[in-house]
């Protein structure tokens, strides 16, 4: 009785692992295909990236906030 169930469970284990690997293997193939296609037809421009880097240099503060602060500092100085 338990042996029968165990046999069935072993079958499930085999089929299950094969299925999981098959599924994820196909996903790997599709992903590589997709990335190659996109990299060929829509190459990424590096400009975006570099602006991000300069932002990080300012301690993670966004350019908008810096602009706002700059304006505020300007205003603050004029008041004095």
């Amino acid at each position, binding site marked *: 009785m338990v042996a029968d169930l165990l046999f069935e*469970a072993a079958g*499930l284990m085999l089929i299950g692992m094969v299925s999981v690997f098959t599924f994820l293997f196909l*996903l790997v193939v599709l*992903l590589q295909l997709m990335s190659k296609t996109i990299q060929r037809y829509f190459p990424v421009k590096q400009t975006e990236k570099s602006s991000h880097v300069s932002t990080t240099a300012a301690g993670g503060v966004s350019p908008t906030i810096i602009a706002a602060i700059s304006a505020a500092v300007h205003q603050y100085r004029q008041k004095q």
Partner: protein
Amino acid sequence: MEAIQTLIDSTGLVHFSLGQIIMMLVGVLLLFLAIAKGFEPLLLVPIGFGAILTNVPLAGMGEPGGVLYLFYDMGITSGLFPLLIFLGVGALTDFSALIANPRMLFLGAAAQFGIFATLLGAIALNWVPGLSFTMKEASAIAIIGGADGPTAIFLASRLAPDLLGAIAVAAYSYMALVPLIQPPIMRALTTPAERKIQMTQLRVVSKREKIVFPLLLLVLTILLLPTATPLIGMFCLGNLMKECGVVDRLSKTAQNELINIVTIFLGLAVGSRLSADKFLTTQTLGILMLGMVAFAIGTAAGVLMAKFMNKVSKQSINPLIGSAGVSAVPMAARVSNKLGLEADPHNFLLMHAMGPNVAGVIGSAVAAGILLALVG
């Protein structure tokens, strides 16, 4: 007077059963682990509190008409809450590391061996007198090895609702214990030299690739494993909303308020299954034991797969990132990183471990779909 007698009868004091007291202490233990030890507090605080509330005699909060029962009925019987959590998790997950290095998916596949080995183990426990698990129950228990809370709750609600409380508690507890469970296994299966292996930096992934990825995953799921569509579908919707850039207000809500509200309700609903009659059984002991085994086997399978891939592939792979394949995002990836730094203070593995880590989420959802298809 009569009213005084009514009042005394209506205190909890005279109505407690031993089981209820034990379960309330279990609730207190979960709260303690969550608050003092920081174990998965977002889930264990509501679960622990729900466990206390559901065991209060006379209040009937976990029975029909009670608010905890309402949460359970509204969100778990229907499968709604775990799916909404998956929506939010999808909107929170960044697949860059996986897209940059798709072979990491094999690590996420290998770690699912924890699930299927545990299924075998649960059935084997039928030899122990007094323990008995059907194939459905064994499958629901096995999913603990997926190290993914909502997947475990979703599958348990479909295959073995009576065991849901124990399964959810085991899943979240062992996810929290990942920093204790995994390192000895990882050290035992790797040499110091392997742990020092440095990996090449990941390439930058374009926005377009990130948008297409959830759709690709969805298509594959629909074609091969439709039973996994609810879980993976909601996950992909969340991820698409995050990456597509045109529905940021929906994505932000899915990542924050919606997932928070559902987490509170889901935790209380799961807690309501920690009633004495459902939890205090020999089965629960079996579940807790099997859950631990599942995590250990999954970790080992991930590490061994990584060692194998390191041997056969051109690019070197540090076997430490294999353990991250069990998911338990992001803790398992942090454990890989920590052991990498121990071996070599300049060896940062975190980004590399994120690949198998999110692959593990997909892997266990796939495994859940397979179990639903074959056993459900």
